[in-house]
């Protein structure tokens, strides 16, 4: 049973969460520290952020495990912590998840690339993602595979998850805007990715990160034109970061962000998940909640 699809069918539009990394930085995450480590180092802080997103109105909140796959952890010599980090994050989230809301297991890319760019091989990636999925699976309702720039690595992640469980998968690629349209840095096109993801039998086709909410309006429009079968998910950044008083900040206000997201909702004619990526906060999500509610009641 696809619990995610059930929720989508019931509500039409589901509200995801906003950024975890930016929120941790505000609470003292040091330069270079892997945010995922805070699941065991400062669990209360991570849990407070989960809570804030649910309080802001999120229907789904994801674990703080973007880099907690064995290959990515190995690069910082943390590979022995894979079980601990993923288990801790999922338990923290489960511990505060209100009834009727969903817990999503977050999986990001490995950080290694296929030839000619790098030396990754498919089976090694499948095995890495499988290990992370195995730890997360018992606690969560769905997976979010996000910020992938190579459809082949995404396919490895999907295969890794599917070796463990049939739980629903939201598969989000990350795109750059070129004069000829939207591409990943590996040159994967929207059309190719959507075709591949549909064939891979995932539940939701998504895009996240890299671009701000304004560019996401066009991206969403293009995605919607190509994909007319599966539900979609969009999590844009709150613009691009700038430095202010020695700290990195995202200047885009919740109001500006929400205006763009409202434009996306206007274009939408199917089942949709919306949320935010880098730079978005519980305030952004709170405003999105209001907009979604107004649209329902209005």
């Amino acid at each position, binding site marked *: 049973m696809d619990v995610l699809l059930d929720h989508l069918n019931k509500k039409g539009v589901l509200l995801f969460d906003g950024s975890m*990394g*930016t929120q941790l*930085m505000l609470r003292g*995450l*040091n*330069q*270079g*520290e892997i*945010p995922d480590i805070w699941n065991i180092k400062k669990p209360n802080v991570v849990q407070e952020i989960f809570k804030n997103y649910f309080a802001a109105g999120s229907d789904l909140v994801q674990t703080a495990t973007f880099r907690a796959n064995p290959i*990515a952890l190995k*690069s*910082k010599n943390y590979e022995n912590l894979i079980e601990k980090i993923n288990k801790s994050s999922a338990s923290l989230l489960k511990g505060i998840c209100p009834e009727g809301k969903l817990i999503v297991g977050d999986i990001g890319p490995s*950080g290694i*690339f296929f030839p*000619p*760019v*790098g030396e990754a091989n498919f089976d090694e990636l499948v095995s890495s993602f499988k290990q992370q999925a195995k730890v997360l699976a018992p606690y969560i309702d769905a997976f979010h595979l996000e910020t992938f720039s190579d459809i082949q690595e995404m396919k490895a992640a999907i295969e890794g998850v599917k070796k463990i469980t049939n739980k629903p998968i939201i598969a989000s690629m990350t795109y750059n805007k*070129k*004069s*000829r349209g939207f*591409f*990943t*840095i*590996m*040159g994967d096109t929207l059309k190719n990715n959507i075709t591949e993801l549909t064939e891979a039998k995932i539940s939701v086709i998504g895009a996240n990160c*890299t671009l701000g909410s304004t560019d996401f309006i066009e991206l969403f429009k293009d995605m919607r034109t190509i994909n007319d079968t599966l539900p979609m998910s969009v999590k844009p950044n709150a613009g*691009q*970061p*700038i*430095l202010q008083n*020695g700290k*990195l900040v995202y200047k885009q206000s919740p109001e500006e962000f929400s205006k763009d997201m409202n434009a996306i909702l206007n274009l939408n004619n199917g089942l949709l998940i919306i949320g935010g990526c*880098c730079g978005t906060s519980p305030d952004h999500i709170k405003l999105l909640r209001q907009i979604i509610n107004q649209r329902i009641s209005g």
Partner: protein
Amino acid sequence: MAKSVVDLEMEKALDLAQKALDDNLHLLEVIEKGFGEGIKRVGDLWDEGEFFLPELMRGAQIMQAAVDLLQPHLEAQQSVRETRGKVLMATIEGDIHSIGKTIVSTMLRANGFEVVDLGADVKVETIISEAKKHQVNVIGISALLTTTMIGQKKVIDALEKHGIRNNFKVMLGGAPVTQSWVDECKADGYAENAVSAVKLTKKLCS
């Protein structure tokens, strides 16, 4: 030769390089005007949005393989391929993303720069001491995360503290880097991708 690089045909490029050796062609011209034109065209195709990372990387690898084959024979022709400049490349401490930096290093080498690549997750002090040791012209610092890009500023602050800021040009790279960040850090420039990094390095070394 240029075409073999643009068409991403490694075997053909190496055959042509070998033929150039057999025919005793002027090897410096072969590198600069033959294969060099090819890698320049690869860069243009990237700019035009026709080529992406895999093509860029493959093109640079082909260029490098051809140069590696020809380089040892340059001396016999009493010609030297002059380096355009020496560049230190590193991804800043705490950031494990090496790929962007590696691509820039590969493209710089393919374009005739000497590159000291320190890898990823490199401490500020290591960058400073290695830059001094190798007497590089340019220090290139990559940061892919908003949590690590502050380290780019730390390198420049440390150079100033040591009184050696003017000995080096510093360029920044990585997804979150913008011109305002460059201004804030008082860096000498930033590049959005490997192709513009080559152009910037040429400018900084001129």
